């Protein structure tokens, strides 16, 4: 899978990496046991500091989405952990607030936002 980052994004780069890998797992583009690029490979590929890749991987690992096997590499975990419903909802609330702030800043009406959500929801269906 090809990751892409944008230094001018609202999210710091390590969060962009985390989000894309999480999306890829949720969307089925990456499967349990798949190997991730090494820190060095991904840093060279995205032209970012290797420490940033390490930070993204460390966070994903602490969330249980990926795991590192010494000397072998980093892999997508077999059973991604399930968030507690309250925590999942809280995270969604944050994301939704960011989305709506963005919409307001760019003057996109609410109905267009919900339309967009439905469109993407359909796209993501397996």
């Amino acid at each position, binding site marked *: 899978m090809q990751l892409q980052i944008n230094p001018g994004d609202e*999210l710091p780069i390590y969060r962009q990496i985390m989000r894309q890998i999480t999306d890829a797992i949720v969307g089925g583009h990456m499967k349990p046991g798949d190997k991730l690029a090494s820190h060095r490979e991904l*840093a*060279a590929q995205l032209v*970012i500091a290797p*420490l940033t890749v390490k930070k993204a991987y460390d966070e994903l690992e602490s969330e249980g989405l990926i795991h590192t096997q010494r000397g072998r590499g980093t892999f997508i975990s077999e059973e991604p952990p399930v968030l507690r419903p309250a925590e999942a909802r809280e995270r969604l609330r944050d994301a939704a607030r960011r989305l709506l702030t963005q919409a307001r800043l760019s003057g996109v009406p609410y109905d267009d936002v919900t339309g967009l959500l439905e469109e993407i929801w359909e796209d993501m269906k397996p």
Partner: protein
Amino acid sequence: MSVLEFRDIHRSYGHGQEVLSGATFSVEKGQVVGLLGKNGAGKTTLIHIAMGMLRAQSGRVRVLGLDPEKDAVEMKRRVGFVSEDQILPPAMRVKQVIGLHRDLYPGWDTELEGQLRQRFNFSDRARVKALSKGEARQVALLCAVAHRPELLILDEPAGGLDPAARREFLETSIDLLSDGGTSILFSSHYMSDVERMADRIVLLHDRDVLIDAELDTLRESYAVAVMPAEAGLQIGAISASPACLRIRERQGTLRGVFRGNAEEVRSLLERELAVQGASVAQVPLEELFVELLGGNS
């Protein structure tokens, strides 16, 4: 141990114009620190003080624990330096320039030299004056890093380069970082390069360090609020809040930079300062920089 330490640095120029007044920060081993600030904020002055090219009128400077003036030779052996206006001897051939550096440094890594030569596209036989800006910078970078310095100091390393040459330079720096061990201090006006490279930011403003923070912390713990500039909304009251770093009026809106993530800032504005209708967002470095330092206060 810090690889670079500035403590309470003061420096004025000729007619008493103060450039630095008490600047203090340090770079720890393995860190990549982006030194930011508007033109004239004193970035180059600080870098020249670290390199022993300029003396601080008071304060303490240590580079790898050494005094850049007294221990100049030892210090230069362990540090690499590239700057935008670095001048290589124009009449020399590339081969001679590199050879000169190779002889100068006991720790010269010929393998790394070979790798970089392969990656770069300058001709060995070309004279320095015939090189493009990008090629000359590549030669300078090679000379600055092939002795495997413990600390690399880059003053606007991408200044004046076209986007392709800039990217090439960035890629090379990242490869060097992957090899490990090198700490870097670099100044740059290209915020996207800073986002890619730096793990810490030191922002100079008004002759001193205004912000010294990890890049990700900075990105996630400062927010920009845009508020309608209506009657009753007092700039004074808002700027008196300790969380407010700067506020200014622009095109019918008030724009402010606040400490705190977007959620915290929104709640501060609504609950404590009774500001309604504010849009609050965490923003990329470039925007944060502009909001903090741009325009008139």
